[in-house]
C-alpha cells in the first residue's frame, strides 16, 4: 500500500487542474505580450486565472501578481518593502518560526544593514500580541507573520496582528502558503497588505505562486524587466502554471468548509489513535488553533530520519523535523522555538493529510507506525535508561 501523508510538502495536481493546463502546453502556446491571436488566447487565460484567485481572496484582480512560487513571493514582499521604505526606517518584525523563505530573506537584510526582531512563540507556537506591540519602534517598516506554520500547523491571530500593524501604520505581510486552500481569507475584512501563496500546496502545479498586494501599497520589484504583471514582476508568464493555479484555487474554495470538516475528522482520528497506542509521545503545535490537515508528534528516544526510512519501506511518505533528513546540524528551528529539547525535536514526525487521504490509509498508518517506533526504541541507548527506570 502506498500512503502519501506529506501534503504540506507538496500535493498532486488534480485532474481538472491538469485538464485546464493542457491547452497551454500544446496548441495555445502564444506569449501573452504578443499582439496576434496566438498571444491573445494566452493573455485571456492569465486574466481568467487572476480573477479566479482574486475571487477566493475577495480581492480585486489588479491586486494579484503571479510569481515563480511561494518563496519568490515571500522574498519579494520582504525585500521589496525593505528597499522601498529604507529611508523611512530599517526595522522589521517577524517570528522565530517563519518558513526559511522569510527567515533567510530577513537574515540577508540584516547583513545589508536592517534590524530584525524575531518574536518568540509559546509552547503551542503562538506569538504574543504584547510582544508584538512592544517590538514596534518608530522605524519599524514591516511586520511579517506567517498565517499558519508549515511544520506544526499553528494558526496565528492574523486579524489582531493586522489591527496592531494598522494602528502603528506599519505594513503587514503574511506568508499564507500553508493556509491558502484551507482557510477563508477575506482581504476586505482582514487588515493585511501582502499575502504570499503557492499553487503546489493546493493541488496546483509546482513553480507558480502569487503575491496579493493591496491597492496603494508600493514596494520595489524583485525581478525587473518586461512589462508583465503590471510592470511589477517581469518575465514571460508561466501560462500553463498560472492557469492551473487559478483552477486549483477555484476548486479549493468551492466548498472549503466540507474540506475542513472531513480533514479535521481524519486528522483527529489519526492523532488520537497514535497517541493512545504509543507511549512517550507528545503533540507539537496548538491543540485547537491548527491546520485541519496537520499532525505533528514527537516520539521520545528515537530519531526522525530512521523513522522516515522505516515508514518509506512500508510505503508511507511523511516528513520530520530532524536534522538528519536535511544534513544540517540543528533540528527544525520551529520545534526548538516551541521549546523542545534537541533530542525530542529529533524524534518528531509530521503527517499531513489531503483531499486524497482515506480512512483506510489512516488505519494503515496506525497499524504500521507503532511497531516501527518500538523497533527503533529497542535499538536506542536512550530508551535503555527508561526501561531501567532511570527516568
Amino acid at each position: 500500500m502506498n500512503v502519501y501523508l506529506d501534503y504540506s510538502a507538496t500535493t498532486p495536481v488534480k485532474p481538472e487542474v491538469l485538464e485546464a493546463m493542457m491547452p497551454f502546453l500544446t496548441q495555445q502556446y502564444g506569449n501573452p505580450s504578443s499582439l496576434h491571436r496566438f498571444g491573445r488566447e494566452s493573455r485571456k487565460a492569465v486574466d481568467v486565472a487572476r480573477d479566479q484567485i482574486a475571487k477566493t481572496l475577495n480581492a480585486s484582480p489588479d491586486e494579484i501578481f503571479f510569481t515563480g512560487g511561494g518563496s519568490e513571493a515571500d522574498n519579494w514582499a520582504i525585500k521589496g518593502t525593505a528597499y522601498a521604505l529604507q529611508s523611512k526606517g530599517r526595522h522589521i518584525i517577524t517570528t522565530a518560526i517563519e518558513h526559511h523563505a522569510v527567515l533567510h530573506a530577513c537574515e540577508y537584510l540584516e547583513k545589508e544593514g536592517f534590524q530584525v526582531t524575531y518574536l518568540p512563540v509559546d509552547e503551542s507556537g503562538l506569538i504574543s500580541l504584547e510582544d508584538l506591540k512592544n517590538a514596534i519602534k518608530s522605524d519599524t517598516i514591516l511586520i511579517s507573520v506567517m498565517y499558519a506554520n508549515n511544520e506544526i500547523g499553528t494558526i496565528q491571530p492574523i486579524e489582531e496582528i493586522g489591527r496592531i500593524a494598522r494602528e502603528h501604520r506599519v505594513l503587514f505581510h503574511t506568508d499564507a502558503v500553508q493556509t491558502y486552500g484551507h482557510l477563508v481569507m477575506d482581504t476586505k475584512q482582514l487588515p493585511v497588505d501582502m499575502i504570499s501563496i503557492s499553487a503546489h500546496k493546493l493541488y496546483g502545479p509546482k513553480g507558480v505562486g502569487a503575491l496579493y498586494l493591496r491597492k496603494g501599497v508600493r514596494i520595489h520589484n524583485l525581478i525587473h524587466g518586461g512589462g508583465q504583471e503590471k510592470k511589477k514582476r517581469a518575465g514571460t508568464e508561466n501560462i500553463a502554471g498560472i492557469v492551473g493555479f487559478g483552477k486549483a484555487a477555484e476548486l479549493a474554495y468551492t466548498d472549503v468548509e466540507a474540506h475542513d470538516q472531513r480533514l479535521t475528522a481524519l486528522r483527529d482520528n489519526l492523532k488520537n489513535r497514535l497517541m493512545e497506542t504509543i507511549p512517550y509521545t507528545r503533540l507539537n503545535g496548538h491543540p485547537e488553533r491548527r491546520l485541519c490537515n496537520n499532525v505533528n508528534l514527537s516520539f521520545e528516544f528515537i530519531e526522525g530520519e530512521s523513522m522516515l526510512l522505516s515508514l518509506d519501506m512500508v510505503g508511507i511518505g511523511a516528513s520530520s523535523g530532524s536534522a538528519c533528513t536535511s544534513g544540517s546540524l540543528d533540528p527544525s528551528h520551529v520545534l526548538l522555538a516551541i521549546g523542545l529539547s534537541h533530542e525530542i525535536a529529533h524524534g518528531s514526525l509530521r503527517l499531513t493529510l489531503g483531499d486524497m487521504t482515506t480512512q483506510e490509509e489512516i488505519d494503515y498508518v496506525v497499524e504500521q507506525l507503532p511497531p516501527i517506533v518500538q523497533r527503533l526504541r529497542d535499538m536506542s541507548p536512550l530508551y535503555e535508561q527508561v526501561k531501567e527506570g532511570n527516568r
Partner: protein
Amino acid sequence: MYSEKVMEHFTNPRNVGEIADADAIGQVGNPKCGDIMKMYFKIENDVIVDVKFKTFGCGSAIASSSMATELIKGKTIDEALALSNRAVADALDGLPPVKMHCSVLAEEAIKSAMFDFAQRHQREFEGLKGYQPPTGDEDHHDHGEEE
C-alpha cells in the same frame, strides 16, 4: 540517496542489543547532535568474541553501527583499532557526503570502548596512542556541507 547495502543494514541491523557483563563499553556522540552510539564488547585473549550496539540516530548511523560491529567481530583489539570510518563507509558501498560523520561515530565508539578496556586492565595499545576520550558535550562531528 542510500546504497542498497546501507538500507539492508538499516533494515536488518546485525548485533543490536546489550551485553550484561561486558568487558568494555564505549559511548560517543550526544543527543544534541542527534546521534548517540553505544557499543558493548566481550573480549577474550585480546580477541573480540562478541559485540553489541545501541544507536540513536539516522539510517546511516544505524547502518554504520551494524557494519562496524560485523567488521570487528572475531578480530583482535589491534585490528579493531585499525578500522577507519572510511573502511566502514566503503563496506556499505559508500555514504552520502553529509552522512560521512555517521561512520566516524562508529570508529570513535570502538576506540572509546577499547580505551575503557585499556583503562580497566592498565593496558596500552598502539591504536590508542594520543587518544583523548570525548568529553561528552563537544560538537565532535561536522555535518560537512557541499561547497
